[in-house]
């Protein structure tokens, strides 16, 4: 989940639970199959989150004007997208196609909601160009259940003006944790409410996006590759937590970091009060609008190396669709050169290496860094990714929060490890 997805309001009254779970959407799926000559026809329904409203509407229009299959778009509020899709699919009245935050792909694939589209995937001439993070998330037990759709990746943004003022070389961004820490100290020393670094200390999704890369780049992990074992108590996690803790005790972070649930990083950076913060391409328009003099650089490991979190959406065919040919046609089209080039020029990183390099990276320095990050970006693979990492009250953010702001790293890690492992065990 990209941190821009700030949860707004979800009102669940106690006794309404049964009602909520029982009767949700009644959006019946699309209809009818392929015509005689093999060209898909009929209609399909497509679901997407409200965060994708602008570009999805346009993409669907483009598709409809050039295809026999007619797609109908429904926008679902991000806050309850997963519940809606889950209950609708379980009741047999889900959409034919759905865009889906890639962190949820393993969960929906493992529960049989998604159609196996391995053959569609294999038929794509550009399948080797797909970024690896999205493909890994789309794979369940050797089969492909989704195609990559939209991309983003975490990078470290830094304010070049503040670097200059603090006597640092604006063309030499930090490449190790020690350099980030010392640069942050120098920027903080400028005074007048200036801070070297900030992060969203109360936001799970932000930190899986922005904090795990430090661990990965140092050779560590937060989960085993198969998602069965949590590794939150590993030494690389300890080091990364200590790194943030040190910057907090140095006074290099504003007090707002402690309770930031994801909506203060961008304003703090655009007002020129903060020297460095890790974010994704979604922040670039805000920085440009504020006429910032800034640049992006990869998130480093402890003593070098780099890593990135691959964010964005995958696009899926929902199991039970009445128009599988039409649905497959749409998801294929959504990854082709026309659609992805349009996306690249309209705010979302494409999920193909060829287009990242030939189109997206050409739009400027920060875009080029995001493109590099996305090409190697990773995602913790788990059917309970949301409960462990994205939940703002989950074990991941509690571990980070307690470590950085109270300093008892060992206790926080062991509590986090146990809670995360429990969530994994309960789900299996």
């Amino acid at each position: 989940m990209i941190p821009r997805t700030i949860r707004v309001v979800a009102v669940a009254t106690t006794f309404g639970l049964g009602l909520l779970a029982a009767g949700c959407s009644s959006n019946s799926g699309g209809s009818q199959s392929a015509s005689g000559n093999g060209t898909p026809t009929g209609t399909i329904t497509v679901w997407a989150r409200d965060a994708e409203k602008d570009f999805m509407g346009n993409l669907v229009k483009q598709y409809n004007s050039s295809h026999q299959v007619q797609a109908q778009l429904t926008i679902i509020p991000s806050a309850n997208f997963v519940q809606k899709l889950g209950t609708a699919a379980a009741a047999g009245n889900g959409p034919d196609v759905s865009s889906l935050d890639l962190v949820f792909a393993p969960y929906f694939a493992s529960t049989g909601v998604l159609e196996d589209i391995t053959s569609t995937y294999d038929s794509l001439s550009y399948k080797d160009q797909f970024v690896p993070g999205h493909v890994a998330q789309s794979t369940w037990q050797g089969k492909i259940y989704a195609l990559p759709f939209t991309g983003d990746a975490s990078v470290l943004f830094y304010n070049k003006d503040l670097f200059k003022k603090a006597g640092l070389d604006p063309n030499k961004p930090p490449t190790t944790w020690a350099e980030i820490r010392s640069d942050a100290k120098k920027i903080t020393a400028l005074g007048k409410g200036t801070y070297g670094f900030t992060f969203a200390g109360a936001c799970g999704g932000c930190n899986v996006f922005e904090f795990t890369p430090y661990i990965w780049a140092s050779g560590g992990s937060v989960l085993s590759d198969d998602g069965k074992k949590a590794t939150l108590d590993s030494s690389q996690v300890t080091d990364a937590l200590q790194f943030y803790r040190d910057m907090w005790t140095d006074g290099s972070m504003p007090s707002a970091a402690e309770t930031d649930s994801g909506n203060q990083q961008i304003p703090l950076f655009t007002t020129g009060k903060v020297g460095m913060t890790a974010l994704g391409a979604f922040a670039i328009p805000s920085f440009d609008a504020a006429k910032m003099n800034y640049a992006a650089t990869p998130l480093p490991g402890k003593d070098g190396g780099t890593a990135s979190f691959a964010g964005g959406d995958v696009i899926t065919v929902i199991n039970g669709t009445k128009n599988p040919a039409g649905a497959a046609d749409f998801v294929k089209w959504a990854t082709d050169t026309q659609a992805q080039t349009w996306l690249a020029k309209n705010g979302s990183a494409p999920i193909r290496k060829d287009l990242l390099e030939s189109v997206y990276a050409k739009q400027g320095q920060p875009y080029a860094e995001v493109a590099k990050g996305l090409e190697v970006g990773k995602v913790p693979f788990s059917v309970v990714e949301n409960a462990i990492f994205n939940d703002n009250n989950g074990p991941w953010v509690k571990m980070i929060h307690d470590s950085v702001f109270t300093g008892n790293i060992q206790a926080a890690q062991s509590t986090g490890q146990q809670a995360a492992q429990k969530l994994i065990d309960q789900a299996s």
Partner: protein
Amino acid sequence: MSTSTASLNQKPLARGIRSTRGTGLSTQRKILGALFALPTVVMIATFFLVPLGMTFWMSFNRWPLLGKHKWIGLENYSTALSDSNFLQALKFTLEYTVIITPILLVFGFGLAVLVRRGDRPARFFQSVYFMPVAIGLASASFLWLFMTQSQIGPLWDLMRRIGLISATSNLFAGHWSSLMVVNAMVTWKVVGLQMLLLLSGLQSIPDEVSEAARVDGASGWQRLWYITVPLLRPTLALVLVFSVAGSLLAFDQFYIMTSGGPSNSTITAVYAIYRNSFIQFKLGYGAALSVLLMVILAIVSAIQMLLLRNTDHT
């Protein structure tokens, strides 16, 4: 703070039915009466009884969002009783209820006394105090979240200027300070309703009673304590049950303002139910927690009713 108005309507309804007893209605009229009641019965069954029954049924199952559910008897309930997260949430909910209820009662009563005179200025202030009640709880939470945000909030800035907090203070970083911000918001938001209810109670006390006491030489405080409060008991009971039930079901204000923080210390019972059901997708377990909370709410309300029952009612 979700409270049902159904309970309010039940009394007059019951009385109405009772009064028709023994008046020898014809069968036709009885059928007609039943037909008139039918829409309400259907509504209550559809929107109250069926979901309630469904919740009970789900609570005896392992019920994931996706996939098959499985009957597990009382396992969800036994898990709940040793679930430290839920018990912590219950403890916090009680803590919040115990703090906010007297605040609301005292301020509500105070305002009711202030606007009691009923002249033009009093009526003006009565409207002013009531105004926040008309705002949605979620909107009010967002408003206060912004106003109290460190560095950018006007209320935060005011507190810093008068020296209550320092320039680096973050009100949501501490358990007590976050709770106090939420309490302030809730008081501002709902005290007007409490005031209105208590005002109607106050106005129903005949002036003569107080007058007589004054003639007998009772002081202001004595009249308040021995005359007003006892006669206000039914209204007080209503206000108390309202505010306690609302507080025990608190969710929005904490979800929006504190996000359960710092470090999950302001997660209420409903918040915990929400997380289990819709983040961890354990719908059966969430249903069991809902049933437990309902039982607690029923017990607490029953105790309040018993304690405040008008025993000397004539």
